[in-house]
């Protein structure tokens, strides 16, 4: 009996001694006095690899530009990127490594809110500032005072579309169709309604559905009877595509509005002609005439020979906001960088003018685009907060 216990114990001891092996290979990056180490974690592999790679390229481009123009107060930036395979637990491990072993002064990442939420407590624990390029869930920055983001949060899009409906479309009456199973959709709908009523409009019909529903005729018939000028559908592209087709079938002529959940080439594949003319809010569009945007696009094309997508622009902006904070900080210490990040104001970025508010979220404009066809979106307007 005790022989067995001894066996178990030796097994454990044997394994703990072997676990120390990987550390001896000298992963540690000797931090040169003339270098500032910044960590990045993202999904370079896995099912969401395109997100991670786009973001990574955006960040790399930003760092390259800064280093080519002399770095930060004479020091060059060094980026350490780790892959998390799109898994939350890997994201936590990667950030743990970046902070405790590579000794970075700041962390950039992640795209998906779930992975940002897994890693943020670790950054907070070690008091290392973390800047997320595109996690829009409000919970992410609630983790603590070292967690920032450079994208707007979900509820803001509701406000944007309400403004757009009231001011640009001159809509008086709108209907709302909410996906009750999604946090995102419910949040957008709630803020849309508040803002639209504030602006003097009237919500004439509120209908709900659940993701993966196929038939929406009952809700649409009720909406048709209410005769709205526009219908706000803050859902994801699959259902939105189906809704648009069925709305057209019922002869509804009202404009369709939505959020960045529409942003997929599947939207047009499903909705076809019915979705053309619909408007949705997004982070950025290559169609923008803004000089900053066009400069970014040409620099990105030179570096990677392709057109940057929204995530690349957000990655670039996250890096630039961090760089801006580092430039203003007297010493590149995590505390000083955090303090400067928190006071970021009117920073001119590719995706608009960014101001970090007291909840460490970015206040910035959103663009409204109109669906024109397969992967074709026309820039309509920019809405400021």
């Amino acid at each position: 009996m005790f022989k067995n216990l001894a066996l178990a114990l030796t097994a454990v001891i044997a394994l703990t001694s072997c676990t120390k092996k990987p550390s001896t290979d000298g992963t540690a990056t000797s931090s040169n006095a003339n270098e500032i180490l910044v960590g990045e974690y993202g999904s370079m592999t896995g099912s969401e690899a395109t997100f991670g790679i786009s973001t990574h390229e955006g960040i790399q481009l930003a760092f390259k530009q800064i280093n080519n123009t002399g770095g930060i107060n004479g020091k060059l930036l060094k980026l350490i990127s780790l892959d998390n395979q799109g898994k939350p637990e890997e994201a936590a491990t990667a950030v743990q490594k970046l902070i405790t072993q590579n000794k970075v002064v700041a962390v950039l990442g992640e795209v998906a809110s779930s992975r940002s939420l897994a890693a943020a407590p670790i950054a907070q624990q070690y008091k290392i500032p973390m800047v997320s390029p595109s996690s829009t869930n409000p919970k992410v920055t609630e983790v603590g005072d070292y967690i920032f983001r450079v994208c707007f949060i979900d509820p803001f899009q509701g406000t944007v579309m309400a403004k757009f409906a009231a001011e640009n479309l001159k809509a008086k009456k709108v209907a709302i169709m909410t996906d009750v199973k999604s946090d995102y959709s419910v949040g957008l709908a709630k803020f849309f309604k508040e803002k639209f009523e504030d602006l003097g409009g009237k919500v004439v019909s509120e209908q709900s559905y659940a993701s993966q529903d196929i038939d929406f005729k009952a809700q649409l018939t009720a909406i048709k009877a209410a005769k709205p000028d526009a219908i706000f559908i803050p859902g994801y592209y699959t259902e939105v595509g189906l809704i648009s087709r069925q709305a057209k079938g019922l002869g509804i002529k009202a404009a369709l509005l939505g959020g960045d959940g529409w942003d997929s080439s599947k939207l047009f594949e499903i909705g076809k002609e019915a979705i053309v003319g619909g408007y949705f809010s997004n982070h950025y569009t290559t169609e923008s005439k803004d000089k900053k945007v066009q400069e970014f696009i040409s620099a990105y094309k030179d570096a990677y020979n392709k057109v940057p997508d929204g995530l690349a622009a957000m990655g670039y902006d996250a890096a630039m906001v961090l760089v801006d904070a580092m430039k203003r900080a007297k010493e590149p210490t995590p505390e000083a960088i955090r303090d400067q990040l928190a006071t970021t104001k009117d920073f001119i970025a590719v995706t608009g003018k960014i101001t970090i508010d007291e909840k460490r979220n970015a206040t910035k404009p959103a663009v409204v685009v109109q669906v024109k066809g397969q992967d074709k979106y026309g820039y309509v307007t920019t809405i400021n907060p």
Partner: protein
Amino acid sequence: MDFLFNEYILSMIVYCGVNIILAVSLNLVNGFTGQFSIGHAGFMAIGAYLSAYLGMNFHTPFILNTILGGLASAAAGYAVGLPSLRLKGDYLAIVTLGFGEIIRVVLLNIDAVGGARGMYGIPKDGGFFWTYGWAVATIFIISQLMRSTHGRAFLAVREDEIAAEAMGINTTKYKVRAFVISSFFAGIAGALFAHYLCYLNPSSFGFMKSIDVVVMVVLGGMGSITGSVIAACIITLLPEALRPLQEITKIDFRMVIYSLTLIILMLTRPKGLFGNLELSDLWKKYVKRHS
């Protein structure tokens, strides 16, 4: 020294411990009893979520949460095992596979545990001593079990079910027993994982996690506890150990090397690293040869 003892290394050691518990417990079903379960991540998820939920909302002590998580997994193991273990071979694999997916999808849709957003703010608890305490307990209990009447019955079921039945062994009953014990420890591993990481997301408990555990069992050798322990460590540490390579070369072939290593290991040692031998067997052999 800083490179040897920091939180990152510690976290890898803790994940090793969690995976040891998972691999050793799955070995009881897949290795010793000869059944084929590929839904271990589902049981892990039950323990993880229940324990995290209790810890967050009722602030119950950690040890209680862990055990309740384990018991809930064991109950689920009983519910799944009872009907499906009457089936043989491939059928059990399919049922457990389906069960693992059901758990994941259900968790995705429960708002109280965060759904697809995930559950965050789980109180930090556990760590090295808890994890290895449980790992030792798992290894000890399962190895003791294998030396008892029950253990012999498990082996008999694996070797020849009809012969075992003829000898008066209620094969279904023993299979369910192995399955329930295995699920219990999976739930414990889940609870330790949840409180160490402080964040849960259903995507962590997908099909690939189950396969990872099966790989650990097969790589270590079906029916070798020592093998499971070593394989669990290799599978956990190998991708991390390959990270520096990625940092130096800037090319991400970490997963390619990882997969190649597995293929080479299985080709050179088709029965797994240890076959069905234990450390103690090897020691005995060694002593015999040198005496």
